[in-house]
């Protein structure tokens, strides 16, 4: 008789094989100039672009998706070491940063550059946009459709397509269980995380592409359906400019990236009735500016959700790598704009943030099995800006307001207390040059505003808002329909249009808003076509 484990393996092996059949034209293999004429060209294949591609392809439109990054099948993710994942799947090999202005940390930014975009690199966490945020959007900003009721059908549909589910309790790593124990002792209630996974095996390296093909990122959920309905996806295709004539977008032009040098090489041109920019908050503003749009809002209002994590050294073996990367969270401190969750990462990536040099660093790394990691992020004000600069990559700056800096330090303080409450004997804080903390009272300095923000190791995963939606051209870059105020038939459909920080992981919100916009575009397609 087939053992349960083997049966399970076969079932999921078959599903994974199904998910790998995504035919993509590889731009790096194109030797001759290329031109095409389609109904809709979408620049970017991430959470926004992929959803739009599916919806419009299902509506019977000819759709071409152009992605600057390469294409890798889910089976290839597992063969990549974390550093190889960074090199192949991320912008700047995972070394993108937002430069801190004033009393602000240097913030490490992770953004995808591959078919599937940043959805390939998320932890899979899915939250709806909090009701209080939607209330602000609909009542204060006048975005009438952005209400919990208005977005509910789109949230529900996206959750169904990409299989959003509760992380089962048995998938909690021991590190997460300790996180919950510590929270419990401090009276902090924890909740079960929801993620877009199917058959998760707890490899705890979701941010580097799921090695088991279990994360339902858009390259395995939305794009295959788009392709099944006739959409074409082209990788390694750098769009350099949107063609605009008479105030109407007519198509895009750019170059395929060379397979050896990575530099732009063979030219391509696409004529389209509608152009959709979905390059994410860091690159959408660059393409819009490069194409001649000059709204003062392009590139401004960038929000990041600055995040920190701590390490906690226990006497027991934690083996935190065995379990879901993220499985619990608490919104207990949401009044302070703080969101806490259990986290993990490949051990070499975790070791990179340990304090000390030489022997002290080695001492801590050797205790990796006994280390647990807890994280938190801050619901921030939009203090960031994206600018064009010397290379293809943007210059990103961020000025953290005093309130957010205090929140960031308070986050470290709370996480440290939870670690000690759970029985940790040492806490590794994300403060550069600081030795490990051995007593809870030694964390009090974090509440005294004595730490320069530049000393805090900080990261961000949800850049949003750099081409924000507004009800007037004076207040933003795109209309509530997603079309730009400046150019007809030019749409933006990614995290850059979200008008404020949302305080939660952005994957599901971007996909759901994209679906709402796509349905609107489909309904009005003939009207848009008549202008083309």
């Amino acid at each position, binding site marked *: 008789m087939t053992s349960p484990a083997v049966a399970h393996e076969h079932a999921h092996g078959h599903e994974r094989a199904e998910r790998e059949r995504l035919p993509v034209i*590889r731009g790096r293999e194109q030797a001759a100039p290329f031109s095409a004429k389609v109904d809709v060209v979408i620049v970017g294949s991430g959470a926004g672009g992929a959803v739009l591609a599916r919806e419009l392809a299902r509506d019977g439109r000819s759709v071409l998706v152009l992605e600057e990054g390469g294409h890798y099948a889910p089976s290839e993710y597992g063969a990549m070491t*974390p550093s190889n994942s960074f090199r192949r799947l991320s912008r*700047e090999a995972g070394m993108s940063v937002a430069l801190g202005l004033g009393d602000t940390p240097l913030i490490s930014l992770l953004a995808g550059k591959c078919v599937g975009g940043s959805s390939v690199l998320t932890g899979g966490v899915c939250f709806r946009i909090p009701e209080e945020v939607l209330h602000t959007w609909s009542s204060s900003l006048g975005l009438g459709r952005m209400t919990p009721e208005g977005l509910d059908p789109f949230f529900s549909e996206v959750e169904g397509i990409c299989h959003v589910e509760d992380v089962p309790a048995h998938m909690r790593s021991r590190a997460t269980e300790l996180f919950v124990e510590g929270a419990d002792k401090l009276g902090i209630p924890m909740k079960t995380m929801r993620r877009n996974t199917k058959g998760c095996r707890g490899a705890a390296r979701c941010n580097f592409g799921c090695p088991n093909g279990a994360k339902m990122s858009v390259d395995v959920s939305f794009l295959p359906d788009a392709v099944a309905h006739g959409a074409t996806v082209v990788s390694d295709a750098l769009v350099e400019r949107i063609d605009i004539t008479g105030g109407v977008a007519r198509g895009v032009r750019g170059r395929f990236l060379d397979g050896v040098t990575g530099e732009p090489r063979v030219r391509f041109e696409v004529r389209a009735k509608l152009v959709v920019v979905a390059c994410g908050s860091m690159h959408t503003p660059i393409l819009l500016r490069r194409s001649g749009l000059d709204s003062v809002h392009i590139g401004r209002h960038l929000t990041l959700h600055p995040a920190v994590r701590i390490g906690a050294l226990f006497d027991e073996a934690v083996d935190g790598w065995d379990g879901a990367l993220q499985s619990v969270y608490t919104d207990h401190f949401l009044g302070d704009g703080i969101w806490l969750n259990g986290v993990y990462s490949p051990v070499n*990536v975790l070791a990179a943030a340990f304090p000390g040099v030489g022997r002290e660093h080695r001492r801590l790394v*050797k205790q*990796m099995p006994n280390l647990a990691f807890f994280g938190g992020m801050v619901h921030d004000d939009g203090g960031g800006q994206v600018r064009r*600069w010397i290379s293809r990559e943007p210059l990103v700056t961020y000025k953290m307001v005093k309130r957010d800096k205090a929140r960031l330090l308070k986050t470290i303080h709370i996480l440290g207390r939870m670690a000690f409450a759970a029985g940790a004997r040492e806490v590794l804080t994300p403060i550069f040059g600081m030795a490990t903390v051995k007593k809870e009272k030694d964390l009090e300095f974090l509440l005294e505003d004595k730490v320069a923000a530049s000393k805090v190791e900080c990261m961000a995963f949800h850049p949003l808002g750099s081409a924000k939606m507004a009800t007037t051209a004076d207040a933003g870059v795109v209309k509530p329909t997603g079309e730009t105020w400046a150019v007809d038939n030019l749409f933006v459909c990614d995290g850059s249009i979200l008008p404020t920080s949302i305080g939660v992981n952005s994957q599901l919100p971007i996909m759901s808003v994209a679906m709402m916009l796509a349905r609107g575009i489909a309904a009005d397609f003939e009207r848009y076509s008549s202008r083309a």
Partner: protein
Amino acid sequence: MTKDFARSTLNARHRPVLRALAEAMFSPDGEVVPERLDAFVDDVDGFISPASKTLRFGLVLMLFAIRWSPLLFFRFRTFEELTVDERVHHLERLERSKVKQLPLLVVAYKTVLTMIFYEDETEQRAIGYPGHARERWKTALPVVQPRREAIGSEEAAS
């Protein structure tokens, strides 16, 4: 694996500084053989080279700054000319410095170097990481029920 972009960033002037940095980070007591340190420099070069021109320029500039940073503490030698213990001490001072940019010199390279160094399977085993094996997901596998015919034939056999 799909063909990867290939280019190089570090030249002959940069490599000794990076090697000296790696030696201070991971081999304060000579734990790592020289050949491995040389190969490690190539690995780091391979990692940073897909980045944009500006970022690569910034990383090279930081390496230049690390090389001459002992002058900030009135040590009239380049970083790679210091002994390993002096380098460790120097990096600790930089990391603790209140001058905003100095800790970033150390942290930027420490992050990249550490990630690549501990990617090596031998190093991972040495720190107790078992590799890809995972156990927790198996604890709640679906139970496969034996078919009725199989039960019947087993009963008949007994």
